[in-house]
């Protein structure tokens, strides 16, 4: 059964007898270059877990930011208990009883638990903070959450899961009626996740409406009551959790199979070729003991696409960072074209033929203040020097060729890079990397935050590059991507290689098992160094 029809109504009661507390009506949010949300309806029921799901870039986080007063909708309205409301800040949303726990926690590590909970609304008497009273309230909250921590403990001393509990306590202390949780379990251990679920059940019993965002599908069906699926900024479907299954969710999330990327049938690379990249026993020690990467070995041949699959914290990004020479403390051997890499700088490695397309486009990939053109040539400026200045003619020739070859949609190369959509920005970063003429191109989550169409295009670009003889290494946490273009998949889990599969040996089950999606072992390695 579908609730899509009812979600427009402002009825105070709905299916299952749950009361509607919050309705988002026809919410649209536009950013320069993209429409993040397009006329999305979303209904939140009291005393329920309202699951919101969708691919990266589907608009989940944007919608939550609007509900929590972080961002304001371009159009559309919010109805709280049937009355239209508008939040200009998180403070206003909090006063209305809406709390949010961001994926990246917003705590002050240098302050104590109780100070964090009461930050900006300290209990005071005559202008003096009443630490004792704050700590008392904090203690009660923590006990209720089954985490009897000392309220005076500094947050930096807490494990990730405990920090999450502090965030929840903070929300509870503000008498939330609606609590938004954005991927709360992504950094938690199995035990911590179970504890969190108990807390959620308790909150639900007390009538709190939970909005729960996650990528872990099984988890959603375990704890969800209502499921809303977003796709490409639009409402794809809404339903009772009981009425659906994982297949349904995936179908709604992905939609009709849009131009499934082709798999190159006959990869030219054979085992006889000498590998262009060889990594042997790469280890990266972690501050506070243990390893972020432990004895990782892999080889990569020309014309091959090798995917690295793993969950958050598996060490995927760190592997790339090591390959680019950003971790001098790493041990092991990296050979490029049979030449052992030593302490080459990033520039040195780029010159040798390695290039990284980083995961975080905004922070690591782009110079926002420069134009599309200037971003494209940034890593290969030396190519365009005649005498000792930059030749505009040479630059423009290469830039235009890149824009054509990668079909980057821009009015002209002089546009500010920020005016492009996420997918086109990503293509600009890839163009920048290609101009360095790499032998090994590393892409970290290349399809993150871009729409389905652009995803297919990026995959096709990778296919073509491989056919031209580039060696391609790409990292992804999205299971379906493993079945698309890679010739081979290596699975990382907690810094170790736990599986390697050729394309025709791939099975979803094997990948998930190797990735240790839910580590059942009594593995004591914490997800964060406990200092």
């Amino acid at each position, binding site marked *: 059964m579908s609730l899509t029809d009812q979600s427009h109504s402002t009825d105070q009661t709905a299916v299952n007898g749950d009361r509607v507390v919050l309705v988002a009506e026809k919410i649209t949010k*536009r950013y320069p270059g993209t429409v993040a949300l397009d006329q999305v309806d979303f209904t939140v029921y009291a005393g329920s877990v309202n699951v919101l799901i969708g691919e990266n870039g589907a608009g989940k986080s944007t919608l939550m930011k609007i509900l929590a007063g972080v961002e304001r909708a371009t159009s559309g309205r919010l109805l709280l208990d049937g009355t239209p409301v508008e939040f200009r800040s998180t403070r206003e949303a909090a006063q209305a009883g809406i709390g949010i726990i961001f994926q990246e926690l917003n705590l002050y590590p240098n302050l104590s638990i109780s100070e964090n909970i009461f930050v900006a609304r300290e209990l005071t008497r005559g202008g003096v903070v009443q630490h004792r009273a704050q700590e008392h309230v904090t203690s009660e909250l923590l006990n209720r959450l089954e985490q009897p921590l000392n309220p005076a403990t500094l947050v930096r001393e807490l494990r990730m899961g405990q920090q999450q509990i502090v965030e929840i306590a903070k929300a509870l202390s503000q008498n939330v009626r609606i609590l938004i949780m954005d991927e709360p379990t992504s950094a938690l251990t199995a035990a911590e996740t179970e504890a969190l679920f108990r807390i959620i059940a308790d909150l639900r019993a007390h009538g709190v409406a939970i909005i729960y965002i996650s990528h872990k599908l099984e988890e959603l069906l375990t704890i969800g009551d209502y499921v809303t699926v977003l796709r490409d900024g639009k409402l794809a479907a809404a339903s009772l959790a009981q009425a659906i299954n994982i297949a349904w969710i995936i179908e709604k999330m992905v939609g009709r199979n849009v131009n499934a990327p082709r798999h190159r049938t006959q990869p030219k690379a054979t085992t006889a070729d000498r590998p262009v990249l060889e990594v042997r026993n790469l280890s990266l020690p972690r501050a506070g003991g243990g390893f972020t990467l432990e004895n990782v070995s892999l080889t990569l041949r020309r014309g091959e696409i090798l995917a690295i699959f793993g969950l958050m914290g598996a060490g995927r990004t760190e592997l790339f960072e090591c390959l680019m020479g950003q971790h001098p403390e790493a041990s092991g051997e990296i050979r490029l074209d049979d030449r052992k890499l030593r302490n080459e*700088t990033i520039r040195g490695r780029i010159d040798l033929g390695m290039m990284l397309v980083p995961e975080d486009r905004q922070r690591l990939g782009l*110079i926002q*203040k*420069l134009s599309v053109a*200037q971003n494209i*040539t*940034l890593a290969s400026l030396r190519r365009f020097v005649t005498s000792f200045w*930059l030749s505009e003619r040479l630059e423009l020739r290469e830039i235009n060729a890149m824009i054509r070859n990668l079909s980057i949609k821009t*009015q002209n190369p002089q546009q500010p890079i920020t005016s492009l959509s996420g997918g086109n920005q990503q293509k600009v970063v890839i163009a920048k990397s290609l101009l360095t003429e790499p032998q090994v191109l590393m892409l970290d989550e290349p399809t993150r935050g871009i729409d389905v169409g652009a995803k297919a295009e990026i995959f096709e670009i990778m296919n073509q590059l491989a056919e031209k003889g580039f060696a391609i290494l790409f990292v992804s946490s999205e299971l379906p991507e493993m079945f698309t273009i890679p010739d081979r998949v290596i699975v990382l889990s907690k810094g170790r290689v736990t599986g390697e599969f050729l394309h025709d040996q791939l099975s979803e089950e094997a990948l998930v098992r190797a990735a240790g999606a839910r580590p059942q072992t009594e593995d004591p390695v914490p997800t964060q160094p406990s200092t």
Partner: protein
Amino acid sequence: MPTTLTSPAGSALRKPSGLSLGVLLFRLRALIALFVLLGIFSVLSPAFFTQQNLIILVGQTAINAIMAVGMTFVILTGGIDLSVGSTVGLAAMISGLLIDRGLPIPPLGVAIYFNIPMIIVLCLCLGLLVGAVNGLLITRFNVAPFIATLGTLYIARGTAQLSNNGATFPNLVGKPDLGNTGFPILGSGNILGIPIVIWIMFVFAAVAAFVAGKTPFGRQVYAVGGNERAAELSGIYVNRIKMSVYMICGLCASMTGLITASQLVAAHPAVGESYELNAIAAVVLGGTSLSGGRGAMWGTIVGALVIGVLTNGLVLLGVQEFWKKVITGLVIILAVVLDQLQERLQQRLALNRS
């Protein structure tokens, strides 16, 4: 060069498309302000728009403009250099010392006297050295630019005072038998009827504009200021770039010090005090963003001219010194407010286009 005022380097790579006239005028505001001021003062004071006064005006501006050129590089990377005023004083005092006393070698009880070109080169190297110290503190020791250069502000000023126990070198004419005459020419000489100072400003500005706009180094300066981590991952040696901009800034400041000492034919240890603020003001007025990554050299020259015209014109009008300061302050604030407005305006345009 209309669009150079606020947008980054490279002329054909720079022209934004589909800009309305309003935005264009907005971008040219420093230049427009300059012409408006020129108009106002010409009308109000008959002595203003005369060849003689304009040469004085540009000469006065040149001192600030040369410093501001160096400062622009630093600010483009997102840094700041507070030590330039002190470097001006230090370079002036050391030039005085070298002319008056030579380079004393205590164990031998003798002093080496250099000729003027040599002295100029030595003082410029001193400026590079101060810049290198700043750069080293900022890159190797991770000191915030504000603090690092605040420290060198005091150190350089103190060293300038120590060089002659706080006293002035009163006469820098030099002695023919030592072969070090001719220093005053730098500050008061003319070539083709135009003061050498103005020529120096032109050369510095032109070279700087070329370097910022046309060379890989310039592009990398913008990139570092725009997003340091992304620049690093693109293979840019961020620390080298930062080191270089502080050295350029020190070089420009020491040039200013030499000019000032030469104009006065004397070196006073307090010369150049608070000059750093004038230089920063010129850069900001010229549309360079204090957060880095956006701005241009020509803007800085226009900014320095605006300050110069304002100062000169208000003096001619007999406006009290104190009011002059108030007005200058207001103009600087107005410039930054307009800058913020432009940013918001462009964002809105970008949004509407999508």
